[in-house]
């Protein structure tokens, strides 16, 4: 049996997935990336192997992805996170034609083909609006954990409108609303709504074709899912493993490579 791995070194978290040749996920792991990218890749790989009860020699091929993909020094191949998210999203939801990926420091729109190939893509540029960093700044200003943002925002009755989607200046908006006595949940719903609008505007550049699959760490935010669904007027595919989609896609690419090597 072939086993392959995908290691996705993101700006905030590093993820790893092991799959076998039936395409079943054998193990996964997520750790904080921190300042030592190579070590984070090593640690997450060791952790996923330990969880899967495997050792390095059991793995036929490792694909590194994410912004730190070239720091996956034990990797056999490096593939961009866009190609990997496309692959992983179509594997989880075969009807996927558009992927919205919101990670720690970037946001992407990817239009995909039937087999998970990338037809077109767009990335945010020099601006953290639409990323986990924006939400993180907003939640810190409100003295909340990032994980609390989603559920709390769903309780909003009168969401506020933000005058900026700048990750720095949003703090001023939030402080102003707090001073006006606005409810925290209304502010959070306003934050999610502003970011959803910004992200959809970005993704429209490649065209939004259903089905739409939402991936990346921000997809854990139920408030963001609802905000995107409301503005798009369609449901989103969101997997419980949405944070792992890049690593999963990388493992799938690795499996294709390993199987091709076996055949030849």
């Amino acid at each position, binding site marked *: 049996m072939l086993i392959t791995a995908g290691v996705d070194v993101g700006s905030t978290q590093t993820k790893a997935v092991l799959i076998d040749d039936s395409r079943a996920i054998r193990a996964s792991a997520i750790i904080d990336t921190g300042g030592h990218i190579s070590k984070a890749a090593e640690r997450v790989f060791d952790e996923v192997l330990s969880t899967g009860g495997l050792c390095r020699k059991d793995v036929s091929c490792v694909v590194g992805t994410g*912004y730190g993909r070239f720091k996956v020094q034990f990797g056999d191949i490096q*593939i*961009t*996170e*866009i*190609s990997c998210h496309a692959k992983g999203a179509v594997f989880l939801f075969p009807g996927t034609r558009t992927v919205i990926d919101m990670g720690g420091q970037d946001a992407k729109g990817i239009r995909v083909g039937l087999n998970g*190939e*990338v*037809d077109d*893509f767009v*990335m945010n*540029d020099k601006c953290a609006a639409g990323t986990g960093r924006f939400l993180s700044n907003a939640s810190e200003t409100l003295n909340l954990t990032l994980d609390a943002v989603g559920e709390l925002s769903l309780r909003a009755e009168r969401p506020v409108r933000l005058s900026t989607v700048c990750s720095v200046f949003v703090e001023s908006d939030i402080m102003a609303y707090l001073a006006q006595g606005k409810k925290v949940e209304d502010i959070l719903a306003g934050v999610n709504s502003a970011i959803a609008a910004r992200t959809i505007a970005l993704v429209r550049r490649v065209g939004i074709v259903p089905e739409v699959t939402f991936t990346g760490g921000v997809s854990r935010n139920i408030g963001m899912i609802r905000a995107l669904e409301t503005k798009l007027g369609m449901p989103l595919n969101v997997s419980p493993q949405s944070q792992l989609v890049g690593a999963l896609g990388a493992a799938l690419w690795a499996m294709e490579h390993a199987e091709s090597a076996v055949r030849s």
Partner: protein
Amino acid sequence: MRVADPVQEAKDLSETPVGRVIESWKSAHPGAKAVGWFPVFSPIELTHAAGMLPISIAGGGNQMEIAHADSRFQSFVCSIIKSTLELGLTGQLENLDGMIFHSICDPAKNLTSVFKRNFPRLMVDFIHFTQNFASPVAEEYLAAEYGRVRTRLAELAGTEITDGQIRSSIATYNRVRERVRRLQGIRLNGRNQLSAAETAALLRAGGRMMPEDFLTLLDDALRVISSRPGKARDLVHVVLEGSFCEQPPLELIQSIEEAGCSILEDDFELGFRWFKGDISTEGDPLRALAHAYIDGSVHSAVKHDLRYRKAAPLVEKVRRTGAQAVVVLTAKFCEPALFDYALYREALEENNIPHVLVEFEEKMWAFDKIRSEIETFVESMMFD
């Protein structure tokens, strides 16, 4: 033969602050004058014919902080406009004697006035290129415009610029352009002997020297490059379009190549590749220059020649070079490039030519994002 590595010499020169280049040239040529020319194309034969150094003044690259020009221009103006002004405001053009701008876009037009106001010592002029290429008087008009500029340059040089001197300059630049075409031919031979970044470095250096010196540099470079072993590599062959004015850092061009692209043809430093062939050295030289502009120049987003569909030359370039795809690399806020992108996109899709749009700024230091975009594009081609 002058140096062991002319390509490295070109890189070094292209990265030397332009003020130092002018100072160095003038100290080696006491009493001689230097006239700057702004992209994309300028009839530098006129400057050279007067014995003055025609020097490309095309922004400050990624070596310069913009500390003054931001207060003069809006945030949505491209980098080259600001950094060119910054060169002047920080005293780096104090050895320059003249500056010529062209009708390429509104910011460049405005920069002319800003230069006149801020640097009254400089001779500043603006060439209105032909807008209506189909007009029967287009050539006559442009020749007259060149005549007006010749008069201004002659006043600056303090000497007459004769027809014979201009014809001689045209002949010299014809030789330069012939060598540049040979460089381009090497890029197309499939052996990867010469990168796009190296070509750009050579052309950038050429904009900072007299054509006679550039000829020597090109001859040395051609000799060295031709002797490189070279080999075919598994890369995606692309045409790169859109960087005709503001120039990306050489490291960015390298990043695109390292991401898996072999750039068969590009429009970096387009001024030296403006003409498809030699310019006539017979008869009225101003008329010859004007004729070449109207009937013998390549496509550029800053020309508005309605005699052909704007995207047609790009599609033809792809077909001619055998490229698999197009990378549209434009400077942020470059209106001519971004306006044309819509037309390019339509034509490329009509012809099933894959393409990707990426934007850059000359002052970039980190290239990870663009590299990821290009790698993804390459992957989408290779995994398809």
